[in-house]
């Protein structure tokens, strides 16, 4: 009896391993293929064969040496700059908003929250022209600062998870601090924030990644200013119809290069990320 139970369990576990292995292959294979493509010597996006005939590292070196056409290092540093600033600004604002909605009670709090909720659902494309002209009015068009502003303001509305997280921190702590004479500002910085590492990390990570993904807002704001492109738009230029054949492998190399640091960042912060998002979305 015992034996067959164990055998059955071993069988199911075996099956689980098999499923996981198949899934893992499915998930990793495209990424591996991306790396293989980035090492391919022959140009072209489509080849009638699968594996490259010859391998080279030229695609990687060309990213940094052949910058007349595609200024990869410049775009990368632009993106890093925007990402870092956006990350700092939006983390601070999101935490401020969430703390405010979670801890403070003031008139129209509910109304503000509802407005925030629905504003986050507004499809951004129609706003692009308007935003561009507003930025131009204050002389910020075609600048990286404009991008930082736009990304930060967009992320303001994603306060839900962080608010959920703050809701889980016992209020008794605040009350104790108030009795000790702390004002709300001090409570926020000295009591709540230190307890919120996971959500800080989660928010920082998500807002850091956002500028790496957008290519549409950038193109509207930057227009003809090639030097101020970010990496997403820059890489997108490599695979337009005219450039696809010649620069596809270089696109792959560029993509791999930006994926590596983000992957490492993700792996390091994984623990916080999971804790933050679970803390934030669990509310029983």
């Amino acid at each position: 009896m015992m034996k067959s139970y164990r055998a059955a369990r071993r069988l199911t576990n075996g099956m689980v391993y098999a499923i996981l292995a198949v899934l893992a292959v499915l998930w990793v294979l495209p990424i591996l293929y991306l790396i293989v493509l980035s090492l391919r010597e022959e140009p072209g996006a489509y080849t009638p064969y699968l594996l490259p005939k010859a391998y080279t590292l030229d695609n990687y070196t060309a990213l940094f040496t052949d910058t007349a056409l595609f200024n990869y290092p410049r775009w990368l540093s632009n993106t890093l700059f925007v990402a870092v600033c956006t990350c700092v600004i939006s983390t601070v604002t999101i935490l401020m908003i969430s703390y405010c909605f979670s801890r403070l009670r003031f008139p129209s709090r509910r109304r503000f929250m509802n407005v925030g909720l629905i504003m986050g659902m507004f499809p951004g494309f129609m706003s692009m022209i308007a935003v561009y002209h507003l930025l131009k009015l204050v002389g910020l068009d075609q600048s990286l600062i404009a991008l930082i502003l736009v990304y930060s303001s967009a992320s303001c509305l994603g306060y839900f998870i962080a608010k959920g997280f703050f809701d889980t921190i016992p209020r008794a702590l605040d009350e104790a601090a108030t009795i000790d004479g702390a004002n709300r500002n001090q409570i926020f910085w000295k009591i709540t924030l230190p307890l919120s590492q996971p959500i800080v990390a989660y928010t920082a990570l998500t807002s850091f990644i956002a500028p790496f993904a957008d290519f549409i807002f950038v193109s509207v704001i930057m227009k003809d200013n090639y030097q101020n492109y970010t990496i997403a738009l820059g890489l997108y230029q490599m695979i337009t119809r005219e450039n696809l054949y010649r620069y596809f492998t270089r696109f792959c190399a560029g993509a791999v290069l930006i994926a590596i640091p983000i992957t490492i960042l993700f792996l390091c912060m994984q623990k916080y990320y999971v804790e933050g998002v679970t803390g934030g979305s669990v509310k029983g």
Partner: protein
Amino acid sequence: MKVLRRIGILFLAVVLVFCLAACNRNRGDGDVTKDTVELKVWGAQEDQEMLKAMVEEFKKENPDTNYSITFGVVGEKDTQTKILEDPDAAADVFSFPDDQMGDLIKAGVLYEITLDKAAIMSENSEGSVAAATVDNKLYAYPMTADNGYFLYYDKSVLTEEDVKTLDGMLAAAQKKNKKVLMDVSNGWYLASFFLGAGGSLGLENGKQTCDFNNEQGVAAGEAVKAFCAHPAFITGEDAILTGGIGSTIAAGVSGTWTADAIQEKLGDNYAATKLPTFTLNGKQVQMKSFAGYKLMGVNSGTKHPKEAMKLARFLTNEKNQLIRFEKRAMGPSNIKAAADEKVKANVALSALAMQNQYGVSQANVLNSSWDPMEAFGTAMEAKDYKKTVKEYLDTMVSQMAA
């Protein structure tokens, strides 16, 4: 918290370094005197170096004026979108393919050219001038005459005789288990069947008119249907042609911009010619094509119209058209430049010249007409026959007119 603080410090450091770097870069632009003529030129990223060299020449030729000319990167394909987003931030001088003419004029961003009008019109080929004029008003400077398409083929697979007819070509390719590529789901290429069958496109009050759904047009549509259903047919964009030619693909329709890549792949077997004939109601009919041109326009909002025109005129003159040919293999619209020996010896350009005898101006095509044509092509490629060709074409034409 320690980890976070450390990350925070690192971030701040990065920001600081970058800010300092940015500040340094911005210095030194300030020495612009009062009577400086400031102009901005748009061109594709690939053309920037060439453009800069040309502008240096321009400055040398006009030493009396103090020019401050800046460059913006906008490829011809995106010109319309980028200008219309904000005409005031757009370049003073920009290049664009002629199918954007209609929309640009409608939006009022093209400066009507009056200086040297007669000279410009006589120096450039008839087609290119026609593409740049509307109602006898000249709106742009012809720049190239290569925005058309023709047939590339692999000499080791297809003979000169094979490529004369579409049927012959398909049969020969099928025998050797190879494909013939044409991007039928692209209105620009697709139209060659309809134009060949005598169809035409026109403009009426700024709206597109089109007769591709008449009797001849339906017959052409049936020819497209048969072509797409042929086992040797393959569709796809340029990257598929350049990727497969020489191995799986024997011939393909494309333009001069793929010439380098195809020549590289085919080597000695590289060949190009006009488009083949196709079977229309049992008779062989020559496929026509859009003979497109690239033009250079001046922004109607420019602060220095005369200088901008001077620059545009210079950038499109005979000498610079030849430079364009040498550096970027762009076919000249200037008659003298086109007659140059080197230009004539170019395989792709001479194939284009051959095809251009059957060329149709695309000045009458609105940019918004491509999507409905693409949709028809897509249906044919997908062998989606739930409606008749006639029904499809009726819808296509009505959407183009909308």
